[in-house]
């Protein structure tokens, strides 16, 4: 059942060839919603990375115990538990980030990236491969969200990680921190990303 896979390839694919945001277009809701600044993107990315890693580990461990007809509800419960844990821990220890991300933390539950990896990968592969897969995909997600957040923050607010580099009253492309700017920025970034990574 388990085919041997090249772990290095397995790790790299999440960042480049199957990048969840720029190539697979998974998890668009948090991607578009929270990336109004680089810091928010990074925070959301790391929260998702944690949930993805933990759920991949657990799903891979219990995969042979779960009857296949109830596997989706079982995965959702596992994922939802970890999301709730992340939410409680953030609220208790990093209240600043908790306020910024707000409603998007509970929405990690329905991030199809996580369920997708549980279903397509962790439920078929061994523990070690699943961890590598989660790390690769998660880091790909973090990088993509941070890049998108940074782009929007630079264009829309003239700052990066809250450090302003334009004058106080300078006109910036406010559009980019508003919702439509998320779509525009994502489209251009995805186009550029694919131009350099996809070999025809």
């Amino acid at each position: 059942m388990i085919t041997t896979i090249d772990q290095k390839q397995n790790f790299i694919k999440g960042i480049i060839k199957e990048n969840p945001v720029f190539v697979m277009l998974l998890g668009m809701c948090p991607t578009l919603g929270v990336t109004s600044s680089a810091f928010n993107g990074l925070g959301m990315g790391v929260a998702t990375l944690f949930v993805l890693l933990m759920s991949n580990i657990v799903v891979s461990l219990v995969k042979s115990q779960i009857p296949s007809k109830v596997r989706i509800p079982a995965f959702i419960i596992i994922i939802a538990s970890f999301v709730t844990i992340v939410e409680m821990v953030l609220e208790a220890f990093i209240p600043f980030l908790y306020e910024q991300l707000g409603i998007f933390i509970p929405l990690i539950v329905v991030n199809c990236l996580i369920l997708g990896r549980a279903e397509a990968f962790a439920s078929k592969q061994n523990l070690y491969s699943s961890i590598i897969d989660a790390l690769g995909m998660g880091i790909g997600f973090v990088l993509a969200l941070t890049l998108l957040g940074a782009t929007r923050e630079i264009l829309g607010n003239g700052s990066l990680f809250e450090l302003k580099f334009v004058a106080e009253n300078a006109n910036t492309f406010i559009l980019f921190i508003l919702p439509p700017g998320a779509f525009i920025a994502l489209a251009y970034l995805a186009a550029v990303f694919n131009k350099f990574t996809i070999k025809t």
Partner: protein
Amino acid sequence: MSKKESSFINMVVTLLIITLIAGLSLGFVNDITKGPKAKAKLERKIKALKMVLPEFTNNPVADIKLVKSEKAKDSVEMYPAYSEKNWVGTAVVGSTYKGFSGLIKLMIGFKQDGTIQNVAVLEQKETPGLGTKMKDEKFISQYRDKNLESFNIKVKKDGGEIDALTGATITSRAFSEAVQMAYDEFLKSEMRNAER
């Protein structure tokens, strides 16, 4: 994919076990984080109180008064401040749902005569880079040391004296509204009327 057969009983049992474990671990984490969560909330409140009130020696959080108001869903929180048993002012939590993205919650500190000492933002979900500029000194300073008896708190577009934030008129309007609501509650408060 998985080798286990999907019979009715083992589906129910599997889900039961998973939910049980999930429930237990959530309860466990909740127990751990309950303390720090409450502490973080209290700390934020005390920080805001220190920011908006004149110097006080009591514990306003312990002396909290909840007042029913027709303008707000929940009762309005009022934190009286005393310095050596003399009442020096009250912090009122003003809120409105008319922000660009819903709820805006402010804490407004009033001196004895109703002059605004300072305003602190407790909760908001406004657009980053536009509405969030209401936290900036430049905007908040417009409210400082103003007495609403003689100062029209509305934004200039509505005939008032407040310069709205560029690109965030709705936020500015809501901000003023929350301050106004807190002021109205302050006027009604027993503390102030007893003083008169």
